[in-house]
């Protein structure tokens, strides 16, 4: 097992390198120079020359790539042209929003999708099954941005004045107290990695609310999160329900299930332990795959719900040709994606010993 894990980790290195290279090259190919994009159309040649030189944009491409790889290896992403602050800080501020959003979307899709799939499979061909599959088919075909807007309209306008009202945008109500938990605890920290890490964690509003026992904050954060998470989670939910059902159906037809039943084991045990465990493999695969659509969908969801997370920032940076941000954020998203796939592969080997021996 350890050997397998090590081999898999090494296999991702060329892919990571490829990602860095692709992103780097794509950025250089974007038409229009960053100088005029950042300093305005009226920037003089001297000003531009200095700008280009300061940001190392006049060096040969390969040298630039080398510098870039080197600084990433040291955890530095440089400064953003547009905001004039280190990109790492921007990441610390904005990544939590996306993590909160995608984790809760995934959470919703798993806790609803898997039971739905299991029920549909044990009640095969019943109306529950038909309805689930119908809903799952519609769910995979749903444009995230449309669903998001419709949900916002339904919950913010139609249900206005009822207890079901939900805010249509932002992460928190303006003016709500969101003091980081470490300050609530009375910790005074010097600036540095440690503080940055805690600051990063405190930007996960739900976690921060829990840690600092700020229930007002927790409630507000959850309220703001429901709609975007529901919109973003719909496609993975449908995929997971569908995959769980078909995988369960396949397993339920196996001989060992009949054996387990005929020896008088309780039905629940047979379904959850014998059948579900063995049908986990394809479900894990689809989980890993849907994270890709989740990260892509984050751009759309964040746009609609006015959340300044990684997706939205990335999109804005592309339109503004802020090289640094685009590079850093795309790389971070892709690395996330690769790591998730790595975890999926490893859990594969854990679930199915045959794979390890391959």
């Amino acid at each position: 097992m350890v050997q397998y894990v090590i081999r898999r980790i090494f296999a991702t290195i060329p892919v990571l390198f490829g990602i860095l290279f692709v992103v780097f090259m794509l950025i250089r190919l974007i038409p229009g120079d960053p100088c005029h994009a950042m300093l305005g159309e009226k920037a003089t040649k001297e000003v531009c020359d200095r700008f280009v030189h300061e940001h190392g944009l006049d060096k040969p491409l390969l040298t630039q790539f080398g510098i870039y790889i080197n600084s990433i290896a040291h955890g530095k992403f440089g400064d953003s042209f547009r905001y004039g602050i280190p990109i790492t800080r921007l990441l610390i501020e904005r990544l939590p929003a996306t993590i909160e959003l995608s984790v809760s979307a995934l959470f919703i899709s798993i806790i609803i999708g898997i039971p739905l799939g299991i029920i549909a499979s044990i009640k095969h061909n019943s109306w529950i099954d038909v309805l689930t599959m119908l809903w799952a088919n519609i769910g995979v075909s749903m444009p995230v941005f449309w669903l998001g807007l419709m949900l916002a309209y339904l919950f913010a306008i139609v249900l206005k004045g009822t207890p079901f009202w939900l805010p249509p945008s932002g992460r928190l109500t303006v003016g709500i107290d969101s003091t980081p938990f470490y300050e609530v605890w009375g910790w005074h920290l010097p600036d540095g990695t440690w503080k940055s890490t805690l600051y990063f964690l405190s930007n996960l509003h739900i976690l921060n609310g829990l840690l600092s026992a700020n229930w007002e904050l927790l409630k507000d954060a959850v309220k703001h999160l429901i709609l975007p998470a529901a919109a973003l989670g719909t496609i993975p939910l449908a995929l997971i329900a569908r995959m769980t059902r078909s995988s369960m159906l396949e397993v339920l037809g196996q001989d060992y299930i009949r054996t387990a039943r005929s020896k008088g084991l309780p039905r629940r045990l047979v379904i959850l332990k014998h059948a579900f465990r063995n049908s986990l493999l394809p479900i894990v695969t689809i989980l890993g795959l849907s994270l890709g659509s989740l990260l892509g969908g984050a751009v759309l969801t964040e746009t609609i719900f006015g959340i300044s997370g990684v997706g939205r920032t990335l999109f804005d940076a592309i339109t503004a040709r802020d090289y640094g941000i685009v590079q850093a954020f795309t790389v971070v998203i892709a690395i996330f994606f690769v790591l998730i796939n790595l975890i999926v592969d490893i859990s594969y080997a854990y679930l199915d010993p045959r794979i390890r021996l391959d």
Partner: protein
Amino acid sequence: MAEEKSKSNQSNSEGLSLKSVSLWQITWRRFFKRKSALVGLAILAVLVFIALTAQWIAPYDPYKPLIGIEQVQRREKPCIHLLGCPMDKPQHLMGIDGNVRDEFSRILYGARLSLIIGFSTVSLAIIIGTVLGAIGGYFGGWLDNIIMRIMDVLLAFPSLILAIAIVSVLGPGLINALIAISIVSIPAYARVMRASVLSIREMDYVSATRALGGSNFQIIFYRILPNALTPLIVQATLGIASAILDAAALSFLGLGAQPPTPEWGSMLGSERNQVFTAPYLVFYPGFMIMLTVLSFNLLGDGLRDALDPRLAHVHG
């Protein structure tokens, strides 16, 4: 098709007759047994009909504002005579959009664009992907290695994000969005094709062709490709669905089709800030996108089950 069906019914009723049934007949029969696949086919047929006849069935010009032609307001509510809208007012089934155009006519024209987008992106991706996959799988070695590593890198990005990045290089516009989505979907076809080639390459009929002096080109395109078509067809049908979805998303973000083009994603995008005051202008385009994507998804699932009987009992 109807003839085929009646024939197959006949052979069924005769029970043990020795009349042969072709593989295609079996496939068709299996396909038509699936209700969801038929629903998908029906929706698609209606959409194709709309797309082909848009210029005759659309009541208004999709591009021309109605200013000075009719007494209508910007973003006016739908007016449907059957639902009690006064008869003296002109009928606008889906309302008036932000530029005083008939939304319904634009929706109808949008079907044309969506289908073209779906088919063209997938055709482009399938051609490139198939060739790459076939070359990699057939020749193997370092060539295969390079091709598949490039595909791995492409797959390492969430598809929409990569598409956004590519469009930002090429510049916004419908054609560039199509190219971006094609590039993003190439790896799927390359992988499917390569897998098929790897298994078919070792078949006896391929060795026979080689023994008879057939060229590599002949073997790949006349022996291997026809036998690898099944998974490709399924992948393509499902691929059209996601291509339409991605293209709509790009247009929604302002990177794909540009106004005033009647494209559903861009129509939705330009009215998205009005969702609270004119929800119908957001609802209809999105609903049409969903319907189109749904039809291809249902069709793709149906085809997969029909073409691959091993899965039939699972999805049945």
